[in-house]
């Protein structure tokens, strides 16, 4: 099945920007890359698009590794597979695209034995963070957890530390809520 044109365009835009950032090292690279990851997250919400999630998780995780490794990371190593992924996607070769994405995940995970545990943690965190973003875009907590393949326990803990619950007006005021609850236990 082909990817929806909107999703394909968004993923390609993110990959192109990432490849452009990797052309030359700059202090702001990690920050710019992290911001890129949120560009595809609305596709995940709207279309439940696993490839968009995969790209968002990779890009966010990669930004954290850039932050951690600083000058030690070799951009050129990642540019070629990223270009290959973009090329595969452009040609609607979804199998090729997914294979390359898997290869990219493996590359960041096996960078360095010392960093391996950190990477797994970062990628897990990226899933939880994007689960929270999807939630903020209007999906329920359980649905977001399912989509990002994280447990609701993890997601609830993360969401609790965000401002999500400050952002929505409610139907009932707190006094009437308490009055109703009191009635249940009187």
């Amino acid at each position, binding site marked *: 099945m082909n990817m929806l044109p909107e999703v394909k365009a968004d993923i390609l835009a993110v990959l192109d920007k990432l490849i452009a950032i990797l052309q030359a090292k700059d202090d702001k690279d990690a920050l710019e890359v992290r911001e890129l990851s949120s560009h595809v997250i*609305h596709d995940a*919400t*709207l*279309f*439940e698009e696993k490839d968009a999630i995969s790209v968002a998780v990779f890009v966010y995780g990669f930004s954290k590794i850039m932050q951690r490794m600083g000058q030690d990371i070799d951009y050129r190593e990642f540019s070629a597979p990223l270009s290959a992924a973009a090329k595969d996607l452009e040609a609607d070769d979804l199998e090729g695209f997914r294979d390359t994405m898997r290869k990219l995940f493996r590359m960041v995970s096996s960078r360095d034995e010392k960093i391996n545990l950190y990477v797994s943690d970062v990628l897990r965190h990226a899933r939880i963070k994007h689960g929270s973003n999807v*939630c*903020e*875009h*209007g*999906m*329920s*907590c*359980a*649905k977001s*957890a*399912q989509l990002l393949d994280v*447990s*609701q*326990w*993890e*997601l*609830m*803990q993360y*969401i*609790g*530390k965000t401002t*999500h*619950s*400050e*952002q*929505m*007006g*409610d*139907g*009932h005021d*707190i*006094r009437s*809520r*308490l009055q*109703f*609850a*009191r009635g*249940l*236990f009187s």
Partner: protein
Amino acid sequence: MKALVFDSGPIISLTLNGLLWMLRLLKQRFKGDFCITKAVYGEIISYPLHTKKFKLEAFQVLHLINEGVLKVVDSPAIAQRASSLMETANHTYSVGDHPLAMFHYAEMTVLAACVELKAEAAVVDEKMTRIVLENPGRIIRVLAKRMHHKPSMDGARLEALQAELRGLRIIRSSELATIAYELGMLRHYIPDPSVMPQPKAELIDAILWGLKLNGCAISEKEIKQVVKIEGK
């Protein structure tokens, strides 16, 4: 028989705050069943039992089930109604031609069980389920802001959803904890006034913030209001 049907969220936020025991006392006072659906059981017990993280918490919830404090409910009628609710709810809001599948089957089983069991209320900490029942127009504004696309709402489907769930009330773990506090179930936590000037207000504030920080969708403004009401 009276019943409250719990979604995963309140069980998770109570467990993570070490307040799960409260359900035992609340149930005695309620004189009815505290139910979870089979799908919710899967989320809060089966899934974490296969992981390292939250496995211990899953055991704690399982213990409450074994004690009979939480009752697992399941029936073809609940499953059928949940599927039908999910079909309606997940086609109520759209962006362009794409319906927004906002809800998970487990959440719909909670609402379906409430209807089938004629439950007094659903206990849900998650905000979207609550808002769609209490303030559906608000969802459009949130989606428009977040999605960068103009969403639309199928009025007929929303009406059908609301008709099916008419009269269903939702409470959160924060309301349960506040009632437990009012009933003196948490009084052993209240320190001597020499430790802090307003121990009752501080305790209720601490409980509500604990629940909020573990996912209960209660706003800071609401917490302040409850502290003002209860902390005297």
